[in-house]
């Protein structure tokens, strides 16, 4: 193009001069503009062509510049830049931060509809259990030049590497570890190991996350797995009930013990106080008794008799007569007649 642009000016003066001599009617048959100012036009076109090399990389992107197919700028950061114009250099822009998703073990719609194709989602665990897994991988561009030129199908390569590591990690663990306790560890191990493989392939991908979205036992054995969870809950419930029993019984026993002690203490106090009271009373009466022995003794005797005798039946017998014991019956109260003779 530039060659022909330079060639034109050489021919142009011979054509232009005859017109210049005549110029009778300035409006009639004016030659086209590229005939009148070929150098300027050519210069302008050249400039335009050169300016077409100016390009802008948006903030979320990076660019790779190739010259005749060879990478000359593997990573151009956001901003305004200049490259050699087409077809010498070529600029390819990439959204490096945008996360790309791929799914291992069925696609998204399968997850929503609850469908699982056993051959796609089935994995074999180390203890030879079959489980269904669906894993979401997210990655972004790490090295733009590598990403663009090293692999025929980047997502296929990433998927294969992650899946291989996943199968490997699942195959060296028991089913319980995969389904529950070591899920997070597997995710991280797979991510790190797959990243290593990807780095070895040099395809410029940065694995952002490997996420086990679902890991389930096969439907053929699902109820048995659920029963294990149920059994665990049952065991916890039984143990809790036992703790509840202990928490009920022991405080009660402590309370009962306190009651026993309090009662015993009360008994001790009562006994001592009663003894003190009795002793004091006795001592006081005894002092008076010492003062008038005969009289007090008699009085006490008579008082006692007064108290006793009114309540009981009495028979008075003469000291000289023989005692006929039948009078005991005869002396019975009239309300109760003697039963026989």
């Amino acid at each position, binding site marked *: 193009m530039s060659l022909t642009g330079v060639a034109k000016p050489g021919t142009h003066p011979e054509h232009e001069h005859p017109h210049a001599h005549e110029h009778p009617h300035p409006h009639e048959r004016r030659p086209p503009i590229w005939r009148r100012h070929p150098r300027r036009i050519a210069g302008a076109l050249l400039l335009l062509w050169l300016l077409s090399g100016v390009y802008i990389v948006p903030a979320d992107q990076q660019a790779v510049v*190739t*010259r005749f197919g060879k990478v000359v700028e593997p990573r151009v950061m956001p901003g305004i830049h200049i490259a050699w114009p087409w077809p010498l250099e070529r600029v390819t822009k990439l959204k490096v931060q945008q996360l790309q998703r791929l799914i291992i073990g069925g696609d998204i719609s399968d997850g929503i509809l609850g469908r699982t194709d056993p051959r796609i989602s089935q994995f*074999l665990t*180390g203890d030879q259990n079959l489980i269904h897994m669906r894993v979401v991988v997210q990655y972004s561009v790490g090295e733009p030049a590598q990403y663009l030129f090293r692999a025929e199908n980047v997502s296929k390569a990433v998927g294969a590497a992650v899946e291989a590591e996943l*199968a490997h990690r699942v*195959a060296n663990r028991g089913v319980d570890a995969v389904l529950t306790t070591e899920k997070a560890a597997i995710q991280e191990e797979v991510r790190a190991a797959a990243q290593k493989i990807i780095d070895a392939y040099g395809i410029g991908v940065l694995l952002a996350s490997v996420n086990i979205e679902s890991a389930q036992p096969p439907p053929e054995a699902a109820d048995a797995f659920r029963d*294990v969870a149920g059994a665990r809950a049952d065991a916890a419930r039984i143990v809790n*009930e036992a703790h509840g029993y202990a928490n009920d019984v022991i405080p009660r026993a402590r309370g009962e013990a306190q009651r026993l002690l309090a009662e015993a203490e009360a008994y001790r106090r009562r006994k001592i106080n009663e003894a003190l009271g009795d002793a004091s009373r006795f001592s006081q009466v005894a002092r008076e008794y010492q003062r008038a022995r005969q009289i007090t003794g008699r009085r006490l005797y008579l008082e006692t008799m007064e108290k006793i005798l009114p309540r009981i039946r009495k028979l008075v017998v*003469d000291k000289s007569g023989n005692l006929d014991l039948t009078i005991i019956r005869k002396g019975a109260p009239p309300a109760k007649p003697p039963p026989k003779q």
Partner: protein
Amino acid sequence: MERYKKYVPAALAALLALLLARTFFSVRETEFVLVTQFGKPVYTVTEPGLHVKWFFRSATYFDRRLRIYNPRPSEFLTRDKKNLVIECYVAWQIADPKTFVQTVGDPVAAEMRLHDIIWSSLAAAVGTHDMDALIAPSPQAVRTQDMLDEVTQLTDARALERYGIRVADVRIKRLNLPEQNKQSVYARMRAERERIARRYRAEGEEQALKIRADADRQKQEILSAAYKQAEEIKGQGDAEATRIYSNAYSRNPAFYKLLRTLEAYKKIFGDDKTTAILSSDSELLKVMMEGERAAR
């Protein structure tokens, strides 16, 4: 002749353009170029960029990028005669375009050849390992990686020599069991789960019993300790009371005897079932019988 003269520069320019176009060629990052002379390979250009060749030679482009090939899953027999369905993938790329074009030509054909090599070396490798070396519940026991490294090395050497292909990696994407074994596997899984469920329940029961028994033991301990202490306290009270009584009574034993006897009478003759036979001679009735004299 004269009238064709004006076409001469154009023809020359066209010829020149054609020559330039056939002389310069660019090689992209994704390609190898094989320069051939009348169909016969002469040399390979692996360096990307602008290159020059003789105009009479032509350039053939080959994709040098890494490709992933997934052979169909197939069944392999381990050393301990167990069937495993293995799905692997192969990462490969063209390494030597000259050999490649002479032996296979295009990627699809290449993958068919690769399939044969990989299948045979994988079958051989799996056949020398027990199932436990590929699938085991502990990471230390699994030696899949070593096996695959071996397979990769072997296939890489063969493929490079025969087809000009570099095998970067052979990896197992999926391990599975043959369809016909799966029903028994499910049955085994169920049995295993049932066993585990039973164990959980029994262990829960065990722990609960232990807790209850311990609680009962503590209860007994607490109550018996309290009983012991309570009886001690009561004993102290009784002892103290006895000491106080005997202290007081021993100072007046005669009066105590009298008083206590009288008190005992009150209790002994407290009800109306008692019949007292009183002698008229008794001190109480003497006065009644004999008059005032007797009281003196």
